């Protein structure tokens, strides 16, 4: 009985809307004619996979998520290790480093768009003039636009990744590390055999949090490229928002959202499996 309020909360706040979304994904529900809702079976899903723009959005979303989160993990872990030692400089550096995290993604997108604009942006103009960027600028080049968005995301969210990993590092028992050092373990051995296995829960938390967030990338795409050039930066969330909020095709948008939910679920599950595999492999050594 004690768990009943939590269960009710789950049903009302999480499960019921999810179920409603799932139901809509099998209908042709459209806000411009709300009185007429017909069951269309898998049509919204087959339409989504038949649409080249949606297929490109799926690919872009996965590329964006893996590249952005992968880079954030690598750089974030490096930063966390650098800031691990307790010192005044490190505390100040950490505080300054967290500034990008506090800025809303929409503002970050607008800021980078203004800076990277090749005709009058402070970075974009000189990059173009010096031949460091394509003539159209980073955001209007089909080969570089997605990579640029990935780097913008890395700039914004790496500090959060570093913070989570740093918290993990600070919670490690120092006696084990000291004992390993006394026993003559090299820095690499200590890192790979002791720090990484013990840090896996923090890595898992950071990966799941950031992957779920990166998979739903919307704001920076909306303000920097609008999904272009062509479909180069079209991502699933942007695609779903367009169908739902511009075309008002709630059924079709729900299908995209349900697909995203399944993808995020699989992504989280795969991280659990990866972490478990890593734990057992490292533990066996």
């Amino acid at each position, binding site marked *: 009985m004690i768990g009943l309020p939590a269960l009710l909360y789950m049903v009302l706040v999480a499960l019921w809307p999810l179920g409603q979304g799932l139901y809509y994904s099998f209908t042709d529900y459209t*806000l*411009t*004619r*709300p009185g007429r809702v017909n069951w269309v079976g898998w049509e919204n899903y087959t339409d989504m996979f038949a649409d080249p*723009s949606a297929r490109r959005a799926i690919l872009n979303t996965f590329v964006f998520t893996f590249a952005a989160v992968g880079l954030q993990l690598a750089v974030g872990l490096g930063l966390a290790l650098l800031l691990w030692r307790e010192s005044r400089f490190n505390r100040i550096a950490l505080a300054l480093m967290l500034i990008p995290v506090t800025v809303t993604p929409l503002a970050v997108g607008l800021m980078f768009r203004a800076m990277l*604009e*090749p*005709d*009058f*942006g402070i970075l*974009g103009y000189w990059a*173009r003039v010096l031949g460091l960027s394509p*003539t*159209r*600028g980073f*955001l*209007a080049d*089909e080969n570089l636009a997605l990579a640029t968005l990935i780097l913008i995301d890395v700039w914004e969210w790496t500090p959060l990744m570093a913070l989570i990993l740093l918290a993990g590092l600070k919670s490690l028992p120092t006696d084990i590390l000291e004992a390993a050092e006394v026993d003559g373990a090299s820095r690499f051995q200590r890192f790979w055999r002791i720090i990484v296995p013990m840090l896996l829960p923090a890595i898992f938390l950071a990966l799941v949090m950031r992957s779920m967030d990166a998979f739903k990338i919307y704001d920076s795409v909306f303000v920097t*490229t*609008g*999904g*272009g*050039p*062509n*479909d180069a930066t079209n991502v699933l969330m942007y695609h779903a928002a*367009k169908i739902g*909020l*511009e*075309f*008002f095709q709630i059924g079709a948008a729900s299908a995209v959202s349900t697909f995203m939910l399944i993808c995020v679920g699989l992504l989280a599950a795969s991280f659990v499996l990866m972490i478990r595999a890593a734990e057992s492999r490292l533990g066996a050594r």
Partner: protein
Amino acid sequence: MKPSQTTSRRMALGMTAGLGLAAGLATGRSAVAQTTAPMTLNMACMNDPFATVLVRLAPLYAQRTGVRVNVDILSYPELLSRITADFVGRTRNYDLSTMDIVWAGQFAEAGHTIELGPMIQRDSAEIGLDDIYQAAILGIGNFRGRQIAFPFAAYVNVLAFRRDVYERAGLQPPQTMEELISSAQRLTDAPNNMYGWAANGRRGPPVAQDWMTYNAQIGGSILGTDGRPAINSPANARSLTVYRDLFRISAPPGAVNYDWAARHEAFRQGIVAQHQIWTISIPSYENPEISRIVGRTGIMLAPTAAGMAKRYGIGGWGLAINAGIDERRREAAWGFVKWASSAEVQRQFLDANVGVFTRKSVVNDPALRARFPFLSVVDESLTNGDADFRPRIPQYPQIQDLLGTAVNSVLVGTADPQRSLDDAQARAVRLF
């Protein structure tokens, strides 16, 4: 209302808002037929320059009628999604809303807003229908004869050009599209960061809407005479080729990712010699805090292809009333619509440097003409206005999206104009 109260109110208003404002309000009284019982209406309002002026003027309406109007300023996508959710969910958060010219088809089909025809007919004398440009009445908020929003702010597509740049080059501003293309090429001096022309190239609504404007001026049309998509017609393919070539030869390199804000910024920064704009943007060029081209801009009619009939694109906003509210609130909302779209209030918008032109008497006012010389361009454009260069049909959002990707892919060089439009056409016909 007692005469003494009226007099003191006029005096108070005159003290706070100046003589001009008081005079405006005094005549504005005629637009409000009856004083309504005190109530508060909520209005969802597009975040265009008129919004802040409306917020400032709304209390004056409350003083006169007892009807307070809370103006909630929203961005374009936010406005559309909020009012749609409100209308569909029947939550009645908003009594009134600004409605974009291109939403008419969707909203008419859904029946979210009330049909204003009977009210317009009832109050036609009070409204002064003859004073409103035909293009505004037939274009803004009107879908196949049903008036589901009342014309509030008509925007006119005009050509903004740099007088100094044209003078230095010894050229005359373009009268036709052919002259515009030629002058754009001649005025381009890329090594010195000067480009002859700019338009939106960014994927989605920015590039779709700009191309549709030029497409109509070159002789193309998105729909055929049968009302069905004719996206891949030879005329449209030709116009898209012209548009692409203008980008390649005369536009700033970053223009393929320009939206409205970036294009205006490029013009204000002084790197673009000319571009087509909605009249609502004109004042920003004369603001020295954000513009490097103060006093150097000319405004003229948007050129069309040689030999084409006069055809000037118009857009803008209507005021619509939520169909879910009760009769009493509807009448109160209608009272506000009449007041906000009256000639007297439009003058006050102009006093605030915001042009919401639907009234002939305002546009042709000699005193205002002296202050705003471009009003002659507005008059000519509205007299020959074309509200349908963007098809005002329920399928418009999807068509705009298809064009937004098709045209952008041509500009970035991944598709040729005909093939790209063929693809868009094939997908558009499935919507009908």
